[in-house]
């Protein structure tokens, strides 16, 4: 199904960090994930694109078990994903997640949003967590709004806080589930800038997005999904200039026309 | 709407069943059918023209407020047509004096009056007389007429058979049950006990049996009834530590009733029907029939 052997593309990168092997999932009769095999290496940025309903969000959410899978295995840093319980919680702490709809804790201030995980999960001292939060918020450009509540910020600002919240846990890998899809066009760039920054610093990232510009500049690899299956997997350069499958050509033709 | 009615009905059935269980042990008062009192012939001019008594005799019907839940004084079980007890026996004497047959339930209505609605029922004319273990007090005389007393009783204590309690003085700081709102409960509190209000006397007895409260207190006559029902488990102790003067209540609209009531009572004292009523209800083999109490003077008209 893929056009190039994985090893070739991933060559020279770190060891495998996230490995999906024969992953299948059904929603009733709907086969939403079909035999997905994917290896994300340390420091790698994988962008997942595809038409809506292709299963790309489900794939992303399966990696930290917000969606369960019916068959196959997912391992993180060599360890299989645990079932429910404390171990799963510990694993999730290692995986940062950024949602399409931000999902900032509505009743907590920006600062509290960023410090909650470190304090409650990592048991970091409050002062340490707050210092770290201030640093992260500065990095995403929200430093002066730490005392506000999420609803007082714009969508773009909220999404940047969500990124800071995930980073505060010092995750091994960051998952982005359509992080800019709910944003007004003028706010998309501020979020993408932060993500590009992150990629340049070597963060391992799996990004589900429709932002082809981001895929071109930041991705090491592009995964094209349709109907629950990975149809094509390639470098961005190859994928965008020379798509192999009809589905990919069709998809790119539609979105690049505008 | 329909479901609401159904639900209300179901709740009523449930509650009735429940109170039935609680009251089931309160059946002692219904032993014996009471005294068969015959209606008297009322001659013309017996009652002054225009008086309430004349009206009642003329109408041939009367409504009496009695208790339904006090064995010995006024008690009505589900199967009784007419309540039984000393209060009811005295009421029968009054009814008979008006020429009405006390056992004719189409002429005499024995309406249940709980403590709180005795005065309102009299004031509203819903009952003509109240004989419902009705203590005579100054405050009540402000709103209704009261005369008598036809009986003097005192408060005693009911405890578990194996209890060391001998009088109210042994119950300072202990929990003592009586019916919510009753004078007995207030008296127990005044004596230093912790009052535990209950809905019924049988509920209090249940608590004493369970050991949830130390004791219960109310009129000795009621306690004797409860002790008799739970022979070997409960006992009545202590001297009477209050005095309740049980009288007849009437409406202040008809002050002429006072002399009439006193007259009937005096007659009952003299002809032995008072003693007969006592023996048929509160009395027993080992209970001595007391002297009838002296009656209060009626207020000057």
């Amino acid at each position, binding site marked *: 199904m893929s056009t190039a052997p994985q090893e070739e593309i991933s060559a020279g990168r770190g060891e495998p960090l996230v490995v999906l092997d024969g992953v299948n999932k059904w929603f009733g009769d709907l086969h939403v994930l079909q035999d997905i095999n994917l290896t994300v290496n340390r420091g790698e940025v994988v962008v997942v694109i595809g038409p809506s309903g292709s299963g790309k969000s489900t794939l992303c959410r399966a990696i930290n078990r917000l969606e369960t899978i019916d068959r196959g295995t997912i391992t993180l840093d060599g360890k299989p994903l645990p079932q429910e319980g404390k171990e799963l919680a510990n694993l999730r702490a290692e995986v940062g997640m950024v949602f399409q709809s931000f999902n900032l804790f509505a009743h907590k201030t920006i600062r509290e949003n960023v410090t909650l995980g470190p304090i409650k999960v990592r048991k970091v001292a409050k002062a340490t967590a707050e210092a770290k939060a201030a640093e992260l918020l500065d990095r995403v450009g929200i430093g002066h709004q730490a005392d506000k509540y999420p609803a007082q910020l714009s969508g773009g600002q909220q999404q940047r806080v969500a990124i800071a919240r995930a980073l505060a846990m010092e995750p091994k890998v960051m998952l982005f589930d359509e992080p800019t899809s709910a944003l007004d066009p003028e706010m998309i760039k501020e979020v993408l800038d932060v993500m590009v920054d992150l990629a340049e610093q070597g963060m391992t990232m799996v990004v589900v997005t429709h932002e082809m510009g981001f895929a071109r500049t930041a991705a090491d690899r592009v995964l094209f999904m349709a109907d629950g299956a990975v149809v094509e997997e390639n470098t961005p350069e190859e994928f965008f200039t020379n798509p192999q499958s009809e589905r990919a050509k069709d998809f790119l033709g539609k979105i690049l026309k505008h | 709407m329909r479901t609401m009615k159904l639900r209300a009905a179901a709740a009523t059935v449930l509650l009735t069943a*429940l109170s039935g269980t609680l009251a089931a042990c309160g059946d002692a008062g219904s032993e014996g059918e009471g005294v068969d009192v015959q209606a008297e012939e009322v001659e013309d001019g017996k009652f002054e023209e225009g008086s309430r008594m004349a009206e009642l005799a003329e109408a041939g019907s009367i409504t009496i407020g009695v208790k339904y839940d006090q064995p010995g004084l006024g008690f009505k079980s589900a199967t009784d047509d007419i309540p039984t007890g000393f209060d009811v026996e005295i009421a029968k004497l009054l009814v008979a004096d008006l020429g009405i047959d006390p056992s004719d339930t189409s002429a005499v209505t024995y309406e249940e009056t709980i403590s709180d609605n005795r005065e309102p029922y009299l004031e509203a004319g819903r009952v003509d007389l109240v004989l419902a273990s009705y203590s005579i007090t100054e405050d009540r005389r402000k709103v209704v007429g009261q005369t008598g007393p036809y009986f003097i009783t005192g408060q005693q204590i009911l405890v578990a058979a194996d209890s060391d309690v001998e009088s109210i003085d042994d119950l300072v700081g202990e929990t003592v049950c009586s019916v919510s709102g009753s004078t007995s409960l207030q008296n127990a509190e005044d004596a230093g006990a912790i009052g535990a*209000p209950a809905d019924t006397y049988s509920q209090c007895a249940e608590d004493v049996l369970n050991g949830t409260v130390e004791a219960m207190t109310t009129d000795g006559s009621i306690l004797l009834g409860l002790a008799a029902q739970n022979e070997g488990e409960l006992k009545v102790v202590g001297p009477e530590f209050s005095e309740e003067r049980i009288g007849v209540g009437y409406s202040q609209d008809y002050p002429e009733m006072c002399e009439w009531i006193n007259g009937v009572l005096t007659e009952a004292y003299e002809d032995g029907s008072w003693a007969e009523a006592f023996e048929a209800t509160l009395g027993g083999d080992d209970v001595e029939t007391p002297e009838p109490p002296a009656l209060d003077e009626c207020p000057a008209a």
Partner: protein
Amino acid sequence: MNVVLDNAGDIALAFIYTLSLFVVAGVLSLIFGALLAAARVGPVAVLRKAAAVYVTLIRNTPLLIVIIFFRFAGPKIGLTFSFVDIRVADIRLNNLYAACAVGLVVYTSSFVCEALRSGINAVPLGQAEAARAIGLPFGGVMSQVIMPQAMRHALPPLASVQIALLKNTTVCGALGVFEAFARMRGLTNDFASARTEIFLAFALIFVVLVEVLSFVAYRLERRWRIV
């Protein structure tokens, strides 16, 4: 009004019992109700079922029967609460008080549970997902993220439940606790001539107490409103 003033001490004591029943049962029912609600939305199937059965059973049973169970059926199976005996000045919290309070807690908790559950359902799913995603275990997700927000949504129904509880304490007046209702019955019996004043005074105090409660709920609602 004299009767009311002359007996102000007794009336105050009665309302202390009423309020203490309300506070004790109120706080405990909030805690127990929150645990029930957590069980109902939690991951453990057995607890979910058990909590649902509890709510169905208790919520459909009249309060009087629930309390009577603890007052009269309890002692028969050895549940007497005789270990409870707290004395503070004239206040005496004894076994009867405890049985009534437990009855109120058991009953009110089922309503608190349902009020909170409606509040939990009003919290967007994404909040729980985000909390899970940062590694909070179920307890942390509930206590840190879901419950605080659910409380806000559930505040109006919770206030109604608690107001009902305040008034429901009067049931205890016939079951061994000398609270306001029992005191009122005592006074109306002793002072037949002043019955209307006594009724009005007690009704007025209840109205004031409920108004205070409503006001507190309203203030909380304003303060907690998500900005």
